[in-house]
């Protein structure tokens, strides 16, 4: 079998097997439940802050734009999503390197297949979770705004879902990278948290020093900086953000591969 095809088959086998295992694991279920509850609480809080209540049907013209409540929940969720992604996957590689169970895999598959298979597994779980939660939020938005047309709801659902995915894939890759750096999962977790926090500080510092110092460029190095345009109605702005997140994803995955190739397992 050609090497590329064999590599793709390995990725598919690892992805399917690891996804099945993850779906059975208590930790995944607990984290999914917690994230869903967190989103619900956010939704209720933002709903209350924005005045709550249900708009009377027929009182307003058809709503084509994203309701403010959805945008609010999206932004809050996006802020906490990196931490959630980190908790879900901090030990995906370090757990295997620390216990040396990775050795059973490397005898049979390339490291790149292992990394991508695990990355896709985490991404698949997020795809499902985000979709379930987004559907829930949009159903609420439809209830709260009966003038929110079905077509607008469907289009905005896809938009929000894609935006969340593009954003979260970069953080899944970051978690993969951090997990590849250490044998001890605890260290991966702490380092991952420090990086997320560091990126946030870089963004804030960049915004603070905007027009004042060269430090303003720091914000461009932080993935979170690019989230503001993810819901932009202008396609090119969304495209630029998407490209930035794709670059971060590639960078972190490439880093993880380089680390794993160089280190002892």
């Amino acid at each position, binding site marked *: *079998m050609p*090497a590329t095809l*064999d*590599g793709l*088959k*390995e990725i598919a*086998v*690892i992805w399917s*097997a690891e996804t099945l*295992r993850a779906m*059975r*694991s208590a930790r995944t279920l607990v984290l999914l439940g917690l994230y869903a509850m967190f989103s619900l609480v956010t939704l209720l809080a933002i709903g209350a802050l924005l005045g709550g209540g249900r708009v009377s049907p027929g009182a307003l013209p058809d709503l084509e734009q994203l309701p403010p409540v959805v945008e609010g929940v999206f932004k809050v969720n996006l802020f906490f999503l990196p931490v959630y992604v980190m908790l879900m996957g901090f030990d995906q590689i370090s757990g*295997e390197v620390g*216990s*040396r*169970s990775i*050795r*059973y*895999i*490397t*005898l*049979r*598959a*390339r*490291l*790149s297949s292992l990394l991508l298979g695990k990355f896709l597994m985490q991404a698949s779980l997020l795809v499902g979770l985000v979709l379930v939660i987004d559907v829930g939020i949009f159903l609420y938005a439809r209830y709260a705004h009966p003038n929110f047309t079905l077509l607008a709801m469907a289009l905005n659902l896809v938009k929000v879902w894609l935006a969340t995915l593009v954003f979260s894939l970069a953080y899944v890759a970051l978690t993969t990278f951090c997990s590849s750096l250490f044998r001890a999962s605890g260290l991966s977790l702490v380092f991952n948290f420090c990086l997320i926090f560091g990126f946030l500080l870089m963004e804030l510092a960049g915004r603070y020093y905007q027009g004042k110092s060269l430090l303003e460029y720091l914000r461009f190095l932080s993935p979170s900086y690019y989230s503001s345009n993810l819901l932009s109605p202008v396609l090119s702005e969304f495209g630029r953000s998407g490209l930035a997140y794709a670059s971060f994803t590639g960078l972190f995955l490439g880093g993880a591969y380089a680390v794993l*190739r*160089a280190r*002892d*397992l």
Partner: protein
Amino acid sequence: MSELAIELSQVTKRFGPKVAVNAVSLSIPLGQVYGLIGPNGAGKTTAFSMMCGFLHPTSGTLKVMGVAPTTPGALKGKLGALPQDAILPPGWEIGELLTYWARLSGLPQPEREAREALDRVGLTENWFTPTEALSHGMAKRTAMAQALMGKPPLVLLDEPTAGLDPRIAAQVRQLIRDMKGQQTVVVSSHNLQELEELCDGAAILDRGSLVKAGTMSELTGLGAEFRVQIARGDVIPPELTQLPGVTSARMESPTVLLVRFDGQAHKPEEVISRTVAHLLQTGVLILGVTRGQRLEDRVLQIL
């Protein structure tokens, strides 16, 4: 491909200041059962891990089945390994786990391979047992099963019988015997009696360095020395060294005569018969003759 399954050339592995393997050069021919011998900390597991591609050598070169073992995917389908200290991943039933690994190895009938491998290690009934629920012995046998799946041409087994009860250990030894002649097997073990019985050749490591390597016959001196247990009479060793083929003779203890001979040029039975005949002619009574030395004694002597 060369006739060598494994070739180490001046391989060194350092962990910080500690030298775990020091400039080891070693060749393991295809088709042999080969032992890695040495006390704790000798570098066996480190050497083994480098052969599997788990560890990168600090210097030197390694070739396993003709390729560098750290090249991604290079050993797929060519190597089965039982790593000594790798834990089976949690969250799996062992049948499902082995099927997954068989699929990853690209074996045509993964589930059948998994069932057959579990059958060979006596775990047929444990298909649905979770990996977390396995005893030490069962986990080791599961790990052994994954090494056997697909009948790879090279199998590396690190301490395959350590911690197993005698009945299961005997089963594992039988599995290795069954592989003899069909696959190349490298076994690392502290059980020297087991290695002497199973192996065609072996390498003795101590403190990271290769002390001696050769065929089992060479290591035990089977073709180069014998001992005569003396019951009564005076042995005069210098007389024996005059016999054809005898290179040296000395009393190892008051009742044991050690004779070394040139095994390349003379057949052991001829040298032994001549020596025994000479002893009897000179009035020495003997109780027995043993060829070579037990591997355990040999290793203790060397280390």
